[in-house]
């Protein structure tokens, strides 16, 4: 395939963006690992990330994370086949249940992250 083939069509470009989401998400998780490790130094050495650069990095990562969630959870309707009482569950219902699970998990995690703070 010629170089830059993925720049020729919007569909190809979005496919490459979808695959690329892995990189910023991996970097953000490595940051989270670092944030956990920083607690090892005790209260005197601990500091929380708060620079503008870090916030900007997170904003970019959030954009890619939302795109990953949207594309990956939408795929569930194609991949998952469940039968209830002998009838296949419509893919629209499966996709909706995935998005509902995403929403519920997000509320729960936000409640823990904010609720246990002081």
């Amino acid at each position: 395939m010629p170089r830059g083939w993925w720049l020729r069509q919007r569909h190809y470009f979005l496919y490459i963006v979808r695959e690329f989401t892995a990189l910023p998400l991996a970097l953000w998780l490595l940051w989270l690992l670092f944030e956990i490790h920083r607690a090892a130094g005790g209260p005197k050495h601990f500091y929380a990330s708060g620079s503008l650069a870090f916030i900007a990095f997170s904003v970019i990562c959030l954009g890619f994370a939302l795109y990953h969630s949207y594309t990956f959870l939408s795929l569930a309707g194609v991949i998952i086949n469940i039968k209830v009482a002998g009838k296949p569950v419509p893919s629209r219902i499966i996709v909706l249940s995935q998005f509902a699970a995403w929403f519920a998990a997000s509320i729960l995690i936000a409640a823990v992250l904010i609720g246990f703070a002081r």
Partner: protein
Amino acid sequence: MNHDTEHVQKPAVAHLIWWFLFAQGGVIAAILLPVHILVQGILGPLGIVHVVDRNFDTWANVVGNPIVKLYLLVLIALPFFHFAHRLRYLLVDLGLPAARSLPAQVIFYGAAIVVTLVTIWILLTTVPISFG
């Protein structure tokens, strides 16, 4: 004939494991990650809400909980098996067929295994397990 039968019956266990890790890593990243980035990466640092990781006492208290440690292991380690697969094929798509080779597989999935081991080590050594 016997040889053929054996071949057919042999399950592709390795393939199944990698595929399972790829799919589960994708689900974990899709369902759990955006809210962590939003709350810990944006709302907390901006001071819009109080977040558990902004203060040593609350962060150490949460990270010491064994259920949280297990959750963090799943949250951090599993997506890397998904990322490894995606980035390897991204390189193939962008014109690097060598990313299909066995050494490339060892590097990419090996990196995911290394991240898993480092995560386990950090979770076990950072804050002692406590139920408080």
